[in-house]
């Protein structure tokens, strides 16, 4: 009976908070309307002791007892105000996280800015259901801190930043002030790079005759004079300024052979397993310095090499 009742109340409270925590883009400021405050359990124990002290002072008509009791109560009340102020106006400036592979943890970096003229202390960030937390011991007036929160990346695709709980018990530990923030930030989760199949060998077909255009990520060899047809982006203007003619970067030539990584040939029936296999192959191909292309249902990435290409492939795998 009470169980049902309390569960309903709890659900109502959660719903209320959720409605009041709309997903927003950063920066966002902790305002009065979304800042909650309640006694901690230690605060409740302290309150009970204050009541006992009040009864004792009344029983003995002890004026110093009354003075102490009321002073402690007033201190607790003022500390509640301090806890509230410690979070009020705190700015969540940015939330970002580098992409990760499924099965790992996305490390969200949460940047907090203190625009106030007072220092803020003991600001803790956590997220419900997420183990791990981070604490800013002090944020100087006008200062900034980066807090880290590791969020498990279970499945490939987009991983949204969880609802964040920003809280503090400063100064006395008797009251906990907290706010819920739901930044719209997200990161990519690539498929877990696992698969039983060995990387296919590069096919020496006609396409391979055309060398892949060299890109900035290849190994830098030196400069050579500009010849017509070179891309303008290859010109090294700084180096050219020191000579008469224009100079362009020269890079290593990649293997002439192109590797096609094809969804259709990635083995397992389970599409997730196939994507994992493809991710494994992408990593291997990049490691081995190959030029590789990716054929997915509905998408094809033309053969290329380099870090940017690898990320593009993984991204395609993540979002398929």
């Amino acid at each position, binding site marked *: 009976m009470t169980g049902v009742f309390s569960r309903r109340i709890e659900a109502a409270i959660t719903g209320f908070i959720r409605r009041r925590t709309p997903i927003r883009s950063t920066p966002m400021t902790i305002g009065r309307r979304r800042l909650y405050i309640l006694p901690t359990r230690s605060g409740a124990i302290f309150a009970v002791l204050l009541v006992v002290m009040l009864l004792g002072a009344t029983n003995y008509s002890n004026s110093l007892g009354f003075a102490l009791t009321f002073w402690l109560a007033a201190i607790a009340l003022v500390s509640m105000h301090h806890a509230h102020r410690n979070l009020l106006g705190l700015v969540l400036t940015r939330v970002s996280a580098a992409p990760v592979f499924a099965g790992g943890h996305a490390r969200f970096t949460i940047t907090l800015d203190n625009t106030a003229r007072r220092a803020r202390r003991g600001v803790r960030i956590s997220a419900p259901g997420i183990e791990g937390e981070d604490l800013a011991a002090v944020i100087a007036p006008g200062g900034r801190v980066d807090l880290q929160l590791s969020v498990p990346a279970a499945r490939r695709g987009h991983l949204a930043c969880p609802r964040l709980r920003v809280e503090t018990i400063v100064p*006395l530990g008797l009251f906990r002030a907290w706010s819920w923030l739901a930044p719209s930030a997200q990161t990519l989760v690539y498929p877990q790079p696992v698969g039983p199949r060995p990387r296919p060998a590069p096919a020496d077909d006609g396409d391979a005759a055309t060398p892949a255009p060299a890109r900035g990520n290849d190994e830098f060899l030196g400069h050579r004079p500009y010849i017509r047809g070179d891309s303008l982006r290859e010109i090294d203007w700084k180096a050219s300024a020191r000579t008469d003619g224009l100079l362009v970067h020269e890079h290593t030539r990649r293997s002439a052979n192109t590797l096609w990584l094809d969804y259709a040939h990635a083995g397992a029936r389970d599409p997730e397993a196939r994507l994992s296999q493809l991710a494994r192959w992408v990593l291997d191909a990049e490691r081995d310095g190959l030029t590789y292309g990716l054929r997915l249902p509905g998408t094809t990435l033309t053969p290329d090499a380099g870090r940017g290409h690898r990320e593009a492939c993984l991204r395609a795998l993540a979002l398929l």
Partner: protein
Amino acid sequence: MSRAATTASWPPAPARGQRLRLTGCLALVALPHLFHLPPWVSAIAATLLVWQAQAAWRSRPLPGRLIRFALAAAALGSVLAGFGRISGQEAGVSLLVMLLALKLCEIRSHRDAMVFLSLTAFLLITQFLFSQSLAMAVYLVIGTWLITAAFIDVSSEIAPTGAFTHSARLLLQALPVAALLFVLFPRVPGPLWGLPSDAGARATTGLSERMSPGSISSLATSDAVALRVRFPDGDMPPAPARYWRGPVFWDFDDGTWRGSPAADALPAADIRPVADAIVRADITLEATRHPWLIALDVPLGTDHRSRMSPGATLHAEDDIDERIRYHARSALAYRLDPQLGSAARERATRLPAGGNPRARATARRWRAQADTPQGIVDRALTHFREHPFHYTLSPARTGRDSSIDDFLFETREGFCEHYAGAFTFLMRAAGVPARVVTGYQGGERALVGDYWVVRNSDAHAWSEVWLDGRGWVRVDPTAAVAPGRIEAGVAGSLSDSQALPYMARADDGAWYRMQMLWDGVNAAWNRWFLAYGPQQQQRLLERIGLGGLRGALVALTFGVAVLLGLLSLWLGWRMRQRRTADPVTRQWQRVCDRLAAMGYPRARHEGPQAYGARVARARPDLADELGAIVAGYIRLCYAANPGSADTQAFVARAAAFDPRRPRKPRD
């Protein structure tokens, strides 16, 4: 993704420095208790504190459960053995001090530290049961400052010096709120429950319910203030009229005067004041642990609930266990009991069957010689005046059964109780109704403030005789021997004034003036702060036009209190539910705690996998077992519907995990 985040590791448990500072905080708050607790309690508490300070200094681990339990039982046992109980002020405070010192041994979490500090605040308040002097107010400020700083120290990420300044700021900011609460928070008259029998045990010097040789002269050596008086309409009456009436003794036996008859045994005194001789006095009486309300002789009534005894003493309904303030009306000229009932007359002339034959014979001779009772009185006073009687604080000893004879005819030295006792005896032996009255005589003007101070050293005893047509008449035989006693106080009449306390000596050096100044400050403290209670609050509210508000204030306060109480009960019950709901999280937390104890604490942002991997790199011997636990934990956390078998397996594995004794790797 539905598992609640673990918060058991936050806020963090107190570190070494914090443990040391908590120990110091308790030591300082407990310090004033050492002066009035039995030495053995102080010794035990000090030993425990030093032990804990040392353990914290050397970062020694906390003692095990068995040791803590044994120590707590020993503390309880020692209090039981020492006091015979664990309730009551002294026993309770002794137990609290010792258990708080022991609590230091088991501060493992932030909440432990918080509970410890709340109880330390409670220890602070118990000090005020023993004293409420101005020095205690200073102690209150320092103690509150220390405790608040310690709260900040364990809860805010701040350096200890910062905690002190922050605490000072908090105290100042809270002061206006506290003052408002002190003045306006609805006060209910106490006591709510019985006072322990040793309440106010320190304040037992004062008038007694019996009078034997030595009982008042022992008071004469006490400087303590008995009462302070303010005269709203005028000034203190002249010295010969400064008699403060206390208990009256009717019965004499074994050399001791005692026994104020109950109201049902004799009718209450019938006082007929002379109209223009009524004096109003505003009296602040120190705690006496007796019900008498002291007032100028003879009292007519007070605004405090009281009744008039047959001996014309005002009796409050209960013992005066704390300093009280009341307005008393007295008549300096009066007729007391113009008619004496036969029962009262019988009681006022009763003497024991035998003893003191010489005194009896003398009284019979006087009676035969004098024509009237007044003549007998005069004859007795002449006897005291003409014989070499000495007024002294240290008279020679007299026999118990022959105390009157010895005093009257042999030693002839004594203090007021000797003179009053002997005179009353003589009157009774001569058939004149007489009784002994005790109280105070005199008083001195305070240097600061418009009031007078009466001290224990002003305690006095005199006689009353009943004369036909005049009623009870005060006769002070001490005045016959040492007239200076009445005019100038004890010091004016004693030959050995060195035996008197400093304040009772007739001397007005700088020290004396400083003392009187200090007494003025104390009197203001008593009048404005300590005496503030329900009545003063009501008066204040009436003065600012909010007299009718008190009822509403009381109702509102208690309504809100009940509501808050119910709410916190519900919240507490819910939190309990949540805590026991999740064995998986709890076991994982245990594993983390154990690893942290081995020197591998989990970083705040570290997920289970990263943490497990880091520990496994550092301790390859744990890798297998830890890997299995981490894998199981992650599976249970993120699985859509974890099976109960999985949960049980994880809980069993995690519970068995002991990084100090890793299992042999299976090969």
